[in-house]
């Protein structure tokens, strides 16, 4: 049902341009990984703290406030590089299970991060309670799934 849409994606000018260039795909991938690094750091500083680890001498809210622009910025960078990567091989992605795992967990991870985690991090007591620990663990598990499925797209 969605296949015509994926065919259209791959026929877009951006998709064609990336697919036909020798350098574009690898360079976009490399920048996508830079985004992964910043995202990982911005998430871990807060999630470890929610789990009672890492920067335990600092209030959760202070860490979350500092990390937020880097969290949002890295996600923007990953989307800006991830979309052209996808467009260049949309039909292959359509038949790739890992791609679907990533695409289905990504909105869940995003919603959890900005609807649940952000609120909890803002008013979490010190030391974090059970809620904080669960939120930190769920956040790490969700983003790990997104990243692992993303890497596995290339292997499957």
């Amino acid at each position, binding site marked *: 049902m969605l296949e015509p849409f994926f065919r259209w994606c791959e026929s877009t000018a951006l998709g064609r341009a990336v697919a036909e260039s*020798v350098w574009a795909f*690898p360079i976009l*991938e*490399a*920048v996508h*990984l*830079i985004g*992964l*690094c*910043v*995202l*990982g*750091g*911005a*998430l*871990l*500083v807060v999630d*470890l703290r929610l789990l009672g*680890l*890492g*920067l*335990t*001498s*600092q209030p959760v809210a*202070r*860490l979350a406030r*500092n*990390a937020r*622009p*880097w969290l949002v910025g890295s996600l923007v960078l990953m989307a800006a590089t991830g979309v052209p990567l996808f467009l260049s091989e949309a039909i292959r992605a359509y038949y790739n299970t890992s791609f679907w795992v990533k695409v289905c967990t990504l909105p869940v991870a995003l919603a959890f991060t900005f609807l649940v985690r952000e609120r909890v991090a803002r008013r979490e007591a010190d030391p974090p309670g059970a809620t904080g620990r669960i939120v930190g663990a769920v956040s790490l598990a969700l983003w*790990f799934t997104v*990243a*692992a499925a993303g*890497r*596995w797209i290339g*292997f499957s």
Partner: protein
Amino acid sequence: MIERFLGWLGQTSWSVALLESLYVWPLVESTHVLTLGLFVGTTVMMDLRLTGIAFRNVPVTAFTGRLLPWTRIGFAVMAATGLLLFYSQPLRYYHNIFFRAKVVVLMLAGANAAIFHAGVHRSAGDWDEDATPPRSARIAGAVSLTAWAVVVIAGRLIAYNWFDCDLQPQPGWVNRLAGCGAGAAGAE
């Protein structure tokens, strides 16, 4: 000498088994890539603090004391998986221009971290809470950010070696930098 050793290493049965494995190699590679989020991720957060760009109201020693152990765990995993990946195709990586660039910049990043910890970090107690750390700490942070970005980019490009010794003709400077020659031909 090195080439003969690496050639032998690449023909050991475990190296061949690793390279040809259906799942082990991808799992090792995936672990290497995902651990970037832990290792480079926590390094980037620390460097942002050192440069005074972010976390300006968080003491520097909170990062160097409580986040650094996590960075070290990340580095250990990166190093272990990275060595395994190298072991799967030693001669091919040895002659890969992006691998060589990565190793050089990796050593620069290591030297920069060593200089920081042996130098300005010793007096961190004096400027721990300063929103903008001293100049040498800011430089260490900026050098680290740049070096690790180059390492990540070069690392990703290793897999797309347009300058492989087997893909001749290449410009003379490429063959020199990659060390292409008799020993490199037919690497694995």
